[in-house]
């Protein structure tokens, strides 16, 4: 009986300190130090509407935009998930064939692998610089922009995620698409 009572006292103590106290402190630290990312890194357009999160992939299908990696959950930011398919699964072959057709990839010009492979959460905001360059011709044509201009935008936004601990450089798809739209508005 004593032990039960003491257990209840500990429940109250740990709830107050480790849930209420801890969560409030961390919330406060985020509120003061990193107010933008603490809210989910939301990007706001000039007219005040929220157009997305820098960290969350959104669907792009129009030729004038760079396309992100495929998503097993159709870019559902409220119900993320992966395909959970075996890498030998025939379902993945079917999906990859559709994507190959969409991009018009050929044996001489093979598709960068991440454009055919869905990410873990289906919300991966990045593609490799190679995968962006792969799409640059299509994007330039659709926007009637010179190809070097599109490639400059890719290079300006490319970064290495982990320095010498990772291979290759990445671009954020939403960021380069925004940069493209802004480049059009500028002149």
């Amino acid at each position: 009986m004593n032990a039960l009572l003491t257990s209840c006292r500990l429940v109250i103590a740990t709830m107050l300190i480790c849930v209420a106290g801890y969560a409030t402190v961390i919330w406060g630290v985020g509120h003061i130090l990193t107010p933008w990312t603490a809210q989910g890194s939301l990007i706001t357009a000039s007219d005040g509407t929220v157009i997305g999160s820098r960290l969350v992939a959104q669907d792009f299908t129009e030729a004038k935009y760079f396309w992100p990696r495929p998503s097993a959950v159709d870019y559902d930011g409220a119900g993320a998930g992966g395909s959970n398919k075996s890498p030998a699964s025939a379902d993945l072959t079917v999906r990859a064939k559709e994507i190959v057709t969409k991009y018009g990839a050929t044996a001489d010009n093979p598709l960068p692998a991440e454009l055919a492979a869905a990410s873990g959460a289906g919300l991966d905001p990045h593609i490799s610089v190679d995968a962006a360059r792969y799409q640059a011709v299509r994007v330039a044509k659709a926007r009637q922009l010179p190809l070097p201009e599109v490639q400059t935008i890719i290079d300006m936004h490319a970064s290495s995620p982990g320095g010498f601990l990772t291979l290759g450089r990445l671009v954020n798809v939403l960021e380069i698409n925004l940069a493209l739209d802004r480049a059009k508005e500028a002149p």
Partner: protein
Amino acid sequence: MPLTAILFVVFIVGTAIALSWPLGRYMRWAMDPAPAGGVAARFTGAFQWTGGRIARVQQDWKRYVVTMLIFNVVMFIVSFSILALQQYLPLNPDGKGAIDGSLVFNTAASFTSNTNLQHYSGEVSLSYFSQLGALMWLQFVSAATGIAALAALARGLAGRESVGNFFVDVQRATFLVLLPAALVVASLMLIGGMPMTFQGAAHVMTLEGAEQVIARGPVAAFLTIKQLGTNGGGFFGPNSTHPLENPNFWTNALSMISIVLIPMACVWMFGRIVGRLRHAAVVFGVMLVLLLAKITGAVYFESAPTAAFADLPITQNVGNLEGKEMRFGATSGPTWAVLTTSTSNGSVGAMHDSLNPLTGVMPMVGMWLNATFGGVGVGMINMFLYIIVAVFIAGMMVGRSPEYLGWRVESREVRLAILALVAHGLFILGGTAIFAATPWGTEALNNTGPHGFSEVLYEFSSASANTDRASRGWATTRSPGNVSTGTIMLLARFIPIILPLAIVGSLMTKRRTAESAGTLGVDDGTFAAMLLLTILIVGALTFFPAGTLGPVAEHFAYAVR
């Protein structure tokens, strides 16, 4: 392996080892302070005050276990009630509704037992109050239960009169170890760009004019203790592959280090309490060898390209990217898979179901052995079982009476140790057998053939190893699966805590002998080899046949094709 991969693994594991040494020292100070004077003793006074009269007595192992179980029952009831009543409780900006009863049982069992097997998807089903008040709270107190149990075990082996007092120990572990660590790491995670908000989901209008709903929440606080307490069970369904739960390379690296840090420090804490640091170093070395072997295997096998793309015009030189994020780098997925299953954490940094078949063996091996650093506190306790068996076999082989740290190991102790080890195998293989042979399991599969069998095997391995299942494909909203894995998690959590403490209780009734030149040493290379062999033989003999039916069969099936 390419140089980048080696550097990555060395960076993660090396940093964790370097930090585990001072942390182990600190944990000794916090968990087992000198009886009088000093800051730690003043904390003891405070904890005795919170705990009341029962917290002032020195307990024997039975009282310790009973009070631990009572506290855990209360934990279960409180979290069950919060989850079951979430629709009536506050902090629910997205209006999450009621959860199915068997799922509530499974989730409460899962987080009470430090398993955090996720049969729900956080952002879909749970309110912020459920996430914080039920799950995050359990992530503190269930992890603290494991650390407390290890401290008690070590005190017994050190020859103290009492194993301590559970109510004081659990507060020490919560308030002095986990809370400060969580405050530091969570702040770093915030700086890394992780969200921490109580506003509901964001509704955005994408560039192409579609509406996207982006779930968010108090992620930084939740995620940090999930990793530090080897809890697993993400804020979001797909865990640490979700960009809001793991925004970039550095939060990913910090998460991986956090996963293995306290389990590593627990080995040093154990060594310091029993007063045998060299012995702890040998045990640490054995665990490290197994860990690095698994990481090497996983990274190597995962560098093979996605088999499904073999005949298509897709580049084949970057490894298998299905279920992986670009921002973490190619080595992260398989390394994380090994770290998280070795430590019974279970959060994922890549989808385990989409790992190459042979890569998938490595996480399963981690859960089968369950002692390569293992869960906080309980990993070292599991290793203690292997140590007892190894000491006994070594003693029999050279014809000396087996001893561990001066305690005579006799048939009673070995029987208890074997019982605990066999229980683990029985839960995994028995559960897998029943569910692989009946519609309970076969109707829930996400893949067919050997990969389907692997899914069932993985599910029960993780339930028994108290590792979060974490988005393995096996369908998860069904009552038989919820109830059976829920029950296994509770048994598999408490049997390997109670039996080792019983062994120590049994040792403590004997007279401790001084170690002499004739005693088999436990801090040299011979013992390390003996321990390694024991772990491998017990693990391999128990699980090798099942492993062959799943991932190995799948590998050859498509290698031949």
